[in-house]
């Protein structure tokens, strides 16, 4: 995916060399409990997703209570807040609409972002079930899952997003200036 050939080899060699004993002995060891309490990251494969569940049907009410005042009742967005749905087929036009449905490559990103950052004024207050519900509803608004399709820690990572293959590595430096050097 990246120019990882040599880079990865160097990193791996480095990693092996670095797995030695502590040099400064500064800082304390983290306990498993505090790691569990603080680690909220979710990988694209779904590791880190807590147990929970929800369907789009159940998510509609949570969405209307917590999300629609900014993002619109159907995810169409508003003056300051981005649209969450629509825009499929617009990426190669001069008016691309970047939404969860048209642009985001991983369903896990939707869950993780809602869980840590939404609702905007009260970030981090949604329960795991509420987050599955709202994620499911947004996927449903984008016609990615059915209205009764349950999202949980097992099913969510298996949802294939429409723009999953829409990303390419950094190709820069890509612009060779034609200006004469003198």
């Amino acid at each position, binding site marked *: 995916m990246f120019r990882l050939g040599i880079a990865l080899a160097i990193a791996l060699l480095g990693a092996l060399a*670095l*797995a030695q004993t502590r040099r*400064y002995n500064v800082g304390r060891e983290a306990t498993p409990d505090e790691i569990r309490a603080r680690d909220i990251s979710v990988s694209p494969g779904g590791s880190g997703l807590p147990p929970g569940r929800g369907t789009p049907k159940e998510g509609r009410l949570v969405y209307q209570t917590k999300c629609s005042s900014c993002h619109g009742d159907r995810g169409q967005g508003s003056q300051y807040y981005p649209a969450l749905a629509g825009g499929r087929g617009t990426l190669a036009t001069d008016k691309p609409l970047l939404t969860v449905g048209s642009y985001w490559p991983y369903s896990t990103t939707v869950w993780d972002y809602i869980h840590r950052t939404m609702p905007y004024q009260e970030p981090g207050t949604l329960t795991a079930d509420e987050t599955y519900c709202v994620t499911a509803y947004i996927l449903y608004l984008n016609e990615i899952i059915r209205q009764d399709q349950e999202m949980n820690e097992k099913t969510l990572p298996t949802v294939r997003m429409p723009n999953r293959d829409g990303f390419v590595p950094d190709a820069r430096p890509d612009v060779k200036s034609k200006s004469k050097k003198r």
Partner: protein
Amino acid sequence: MKRSDLSRRAFLTTASATVGAAAIPSVGLPQQLGTPRRAYGERSPFEKSSRYFRESATPASGSSRTPLQDLFGIITPSALHYEVHHSGVPQIDPRHHEVMVHGLVERPLVFTMEDLHRFPSVSRIHFLECAGNSAGEQIGRPGADPQRSHGLLSCSEWTGVPLRTLLEEAGLKPSASWIVAEGSDAGRLARSIPLEKALDDVLVAYGQNGEALRPEQGYPVRLVVPGWEGNVNIKWLGRLHVVDQPYMTPYETASYTDLMPDGKARQFTFVMEAKSVITRPTGGQKLPSPGFYEITGLAWSGRGRITRVEVSTNGGASWGDAQLNEPVLSKALTRFCLPWSWDGKETSLQSRCTDETGYLQPTRDELLTVRGVNATDHYNGIKPWYVHTDGKVSHV
């Protein structure tokens, strides 16, 4: 003005008139005692330069821009450093703040601020630039002055611990290949960074221009990822998760990706490419008369040192080498200058820079030809300023 001031002034005027030619002229010199000492310094009340921002959706989100046209040298005063916030500026008590390193490590560790201060430290001067800096130039709505066109750019001396030191202390497992850095702001903003860069020159910084970081710049501790887009320089750093793949956060998928004309988007376009802007004479200023002026500005590259800056004073017809003022540092702002005599005629001023990789800053047309109109981030085109016959300098 108070009545007592008025009568004092009237008295002084009368007194000096009475003494007449015998008195030494005292124009401009203070005739009363100055203010006492101050525990924490402030600038002169005559200095008004400030960050610029428009209203945003909520006070907790949005950006503010550095007044590049008012600055000297290469260091941005901390109070004028640009800001981009997504969930507001947290007020963090350093006595209760910890940075956790966990994931694919031999020993997950927790560091207090006191711990971080104990490690061997380094100080380095680096620029920070938002990926979206000068997006207005890209979309054809050029900024009226350098603050509006290029103000999501600042440069500081950062002091802290190399990230490598902390990762070595925790001990990396062979499968480690990325880290996810997370802030302790309300939205816990997170970005994935390749391990190769993390082990290269990334700093866990607590110092900015000789004092503790400003809250807006991540107090008490942040990442400084030299040369890379501002967003990965995680502020209010709380957690470093060592992993085996990028975690695809919204800021590396939904945004800061560059949509190409074919509908595919470039991802992990971290490096900020070589770029320059003239900050004097510049948009919003007025040349009082024809004659001598020093042209000066800033150049920088996320790939290393600036090796050359050329300036054109005739709309790009010819270019002359500007002087690079010392110090010229890797991934830092570089100050350039060139003497110029304005003949009173209409013209345009522009600069272009070359970095140590040989990369030459392109024109807007050259960029748009390759990247199309939808990739507004990571724009680094040449910026022209137009001098009019009345001495006014503008962006159009």
